[in-house]
């Protein structure tokens, strides 16, 4: 289901791009990429619900902002709307689409026949009795014609790899937007809860002020309450700044600026879903769907073709041929010639070595990437399971327990066993549990998005590394700060 949605979106995107480029050949690329995505399944976590479509309208002009964007922005945002906006408006994604055109151009260029070369010369003999003599010749690079299919094959293989890379960019763009949106939801929730904690401290300070005013509370207790309020204010300010950062990350992921950044996202993070993780089948799906592996495979194919091409270049004597006409003033003499460059010294050994090394490097990169895909899949699965269990525990056990503790503390207050400050302290613990729940929910939804991403074919830049662990082996992704 998801693969078709992704491929649909990608298809529309590429169609739109091709229209903008005016090349028309992108239609073929879109079709190929869609077929690739469909063939690889772009699998999903077992039991996970399908996401809404992210397809771009094909009639949009690529150089202009799509007309759909303002309509989406006029309403409160939700995760899928953010994803759709990112595919509509993200400029890096558009740049990638142009880069696909570069590769297409190389294919076209590789398939063009070489131009013939014509040589004309005039000679004025010193013998006054002789007529002006003219030579004319035409030269054609036969070697290039012979090697043209090899060059074109290599360029087409690069184009195919580039198509896969761009498809991956689409997935990455949508992933970044989704995760950034979750971050916004979480940061809004945390800010609300931090503000609630501040209100609790302020209530405690108000009580302390009143008790101090009537002589029941010493200065030290009042000062302590005041200090707690001021510390809580800083926490609220930090939460506000974190939210602003999160909003900007989403703006960046979508490609928004100016007035367009005044969107709202009122919904809190949804509760965790019940996930059934297919640990064994997941790796197979992820490897089959991996666009990174497909891209490397494509580039390996291109490199292989380049090895063959360079070997052929090295072994094939340089051939060029032509016709020659000479007019000695009385008549034309016509003949032909063939030039043969002997492959004695330069047999393209250097290019062959480079191409072979590139092929070898890609082969190793392929294996390394497959290892990284498996590791990232397992990491995502583990994180989904762990964060999901913890989030459900927060929701089903800890938060009710904290609420019960607050209710019981209130009864103890009614029984004059504890004071207003303990009541507020218990309320703050409930708030802190709410903050921890929100953070865990964020971890869960990010892990869910990461798991979907791996199964869709992308394992880079998932940001799953725990604190203090670099992103090595995970595709060198950015967003390391979003991993937990």
């Amino acid at each position: 289901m998801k693969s078709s949605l992704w491929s649909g979106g990608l298809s529309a995107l590429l169609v739109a791009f091709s229209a903008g480029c005016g090349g028309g050949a992108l239609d073929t690329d879109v079709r190929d990429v869609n077929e690739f995505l469909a063939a690889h399944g772009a699998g999903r976590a077992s039991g996970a619900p399908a996401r809404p479509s992210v397809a771009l309208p094909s009639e949009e002009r690529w150089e202009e902002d799509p007309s759909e964007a303002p309509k989406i922005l006029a309403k409160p945002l939700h995760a899928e709307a953010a994803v759709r906006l990112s595919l509509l408006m993200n400029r890096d994604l558009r740049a990638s689409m142009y880069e696909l055109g570069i590769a297409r151009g190389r294919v076209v260029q590789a398939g063009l026949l070489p131009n013939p070369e014509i040589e004309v010369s005039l000679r004025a003999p010193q013998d006054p009795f002789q007529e002006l003599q003219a030579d004319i010749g035409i030269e054609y690079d036969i070697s290039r014609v012979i090697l043209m299919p090899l060059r074109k094959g290599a360029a087409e293989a690069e184009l195919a790899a580039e198509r896969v890379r761009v498809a991956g960019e689409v997935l990455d763009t949508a992933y970044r937007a989704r995760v950034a949106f979750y971050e916004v939801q979480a940061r809004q929730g945390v800010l609300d809860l931090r503000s609630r904690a501040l209100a609790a401290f302020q209530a405690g300070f108000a009580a302390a002020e009143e008790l101090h005013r009537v002589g029941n509370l010493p200065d030290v207790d009042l000062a302590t309450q005041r200090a707690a309020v001021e510390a809580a204010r800083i926490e609220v300010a930090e939460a506000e700044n974190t939210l602003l950062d999160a909003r900007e990350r989403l703006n960046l992921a979508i490609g928004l600026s100016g007035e367009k950044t005044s969107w709202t996202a009122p919904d809190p993070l949804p509760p965790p879903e019940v996930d059934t993780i297919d640990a064994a089948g997941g790796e197979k799906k992820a490897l089959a769907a991996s666009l990174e592996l497909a891209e490397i495979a494509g580039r390996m194919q291109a490199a292989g073709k380049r090895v063959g091409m360079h070997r052929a270049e090295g072994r094939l004597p340089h051939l060029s041929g032509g016709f020659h006409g000479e007019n000695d003033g009385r008549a034309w003499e016509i003949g032909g010639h063939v030039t043969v460059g002997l492959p004695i010294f330069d047999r393209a050994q250097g290019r062959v070595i480079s191409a072979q090394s590139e092929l070898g490097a890609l082969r190793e990169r392929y294996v390394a990437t497959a290892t990284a895909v498996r590791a990232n899949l397992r990491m995502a699965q583990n994180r989904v399971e762990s964060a999901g269990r913890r989030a459900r525990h927060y929701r089903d056990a800890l938060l009710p327990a904290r609420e019960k503790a607050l209710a019981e503390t209130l009864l103890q207050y009614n029984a004059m066993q504890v004071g207003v400050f303990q009541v507020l302290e218990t309320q703050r613990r409930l708030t802190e549990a709410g903050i921890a729940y929100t953070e865990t929910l964020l971890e869960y939804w990010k892990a869910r998005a990461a798991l979907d991403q791996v199964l869709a074919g992308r394992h880079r830049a998932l940001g799953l590394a725990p604190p203090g662990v670099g992103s090595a082996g995970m595709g060198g992704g950015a967003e390391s700060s979003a991993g937990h």
Partner: protein
Amino acid sequence: MDRRDFVKIGAAIGGALVASEALAQGAPEKNAGKRARRPGPFPGGQPAVVTPNGATLKLVEKDGVKIGHLVAMPVKHTFTPGLEAECWGYNGRVHGPTIEVVEGDRVRFYVTNRLPEPTTVHWHGVILPCGMDGVAGLTQKPIEPKDTHVYEFTFSKAGTFMYHPHYDEMTQMALGMVGMIVVHPKNPRGPRVDRDFALVTHEWAIRAGARRPDPNEMKDFNVLTFNAKAYPGTEPLVVGKGERVRIRLGNLSAMDHHPIHIHGLAFETTWTDGGEIPVTARHPDTTVLVPTGSVRVIEFVPTESGDWAMHCHMTHHIMNQMGHGFPVMVGANAAAIDKRVQALVPDYMTMGQAGMGGMDDMKMPVPKNSIPMRGGKGPFSTIDMGGMFTILKVRDDPDAEDGKGWYAHPKGTVADKADSTKMKADGIDPDVTF
């Protein structure tokens, strides 16, 4: 001449003596001797001891030895309606039954241990063979769970004593294992009493909502009791006007002494657990300090009918489960606090800003199994005391009272709202400032 002989001499002499006793107590002569004294079952006609909210141990006499059986065991005990706790006691009771014997009685007490740990019984204040003193390790082996030990000795001295374990005292006494011992004199001296009560004072740490006293507590005791009952669960002491009344007060609290105060009369301390106080050493009091680990016996003749308060004068000892974590709210403006707190905890309401009286009437929801600020119903309003508080009911006809009825005040004898006209006539300005 012992008491029996004294009674046989005749009413005339007896009457004269009673009159003199009443004078000795400071009672108006008109009240003395109004009631016919009923001889009790003990030497000299002394009445049997009444243990309010308690019982007396059944003793069977065989071959000149009085035999009793104490079973140490867990007991579910109700301190007052609303507060029940898992305690330890004897014979299904908290506290244990009062042992009542006569000076010179030889006794044999079987003590069965149904506790999860060993125990002993120490006969506090009793002079007996060292091996019967009940101190684990020092004078005997502990009584292991399910075992029964036997103690046998002679009560050689009259007086009021107590019993309690001397194994893991902190836990076992904190959970309720104490009891009173009354040894009537074989040849009583002095005036015979008409009513004889035994009250053991005790203190407990039971957190509001908990169901077991905390033996580890050293200072924060929140349930204070007479005979293991907190007011309003305490049975009143019903006595007759002009009767001579004896109250035996024992204190087996963990940490606190109790200044026991009785309203409407003065009394003399006549005995301690060390023996009888010479008449010449006695003096009138309205409050007697009962140190922990001690007995004080007081006697008095009430001359004023009514319902009189009898309580420990430590004010926290007449509160039920008052907490110590509550800040002083007196004088605070509740509105300044409630607005902010209720935004976070809607059911919160500031309390105590005008003092804590009347809390019982607020009927705030409180933790299960707790009696904070619980008082009793009085004839005029809620009695906002609890804990170590009971009522001495002095009546013209005490035998007709069941202790539940309130005293009917003669007209004009109850303090009431002052009449402004009368105030002015008396030169009292209600709006006077200082």
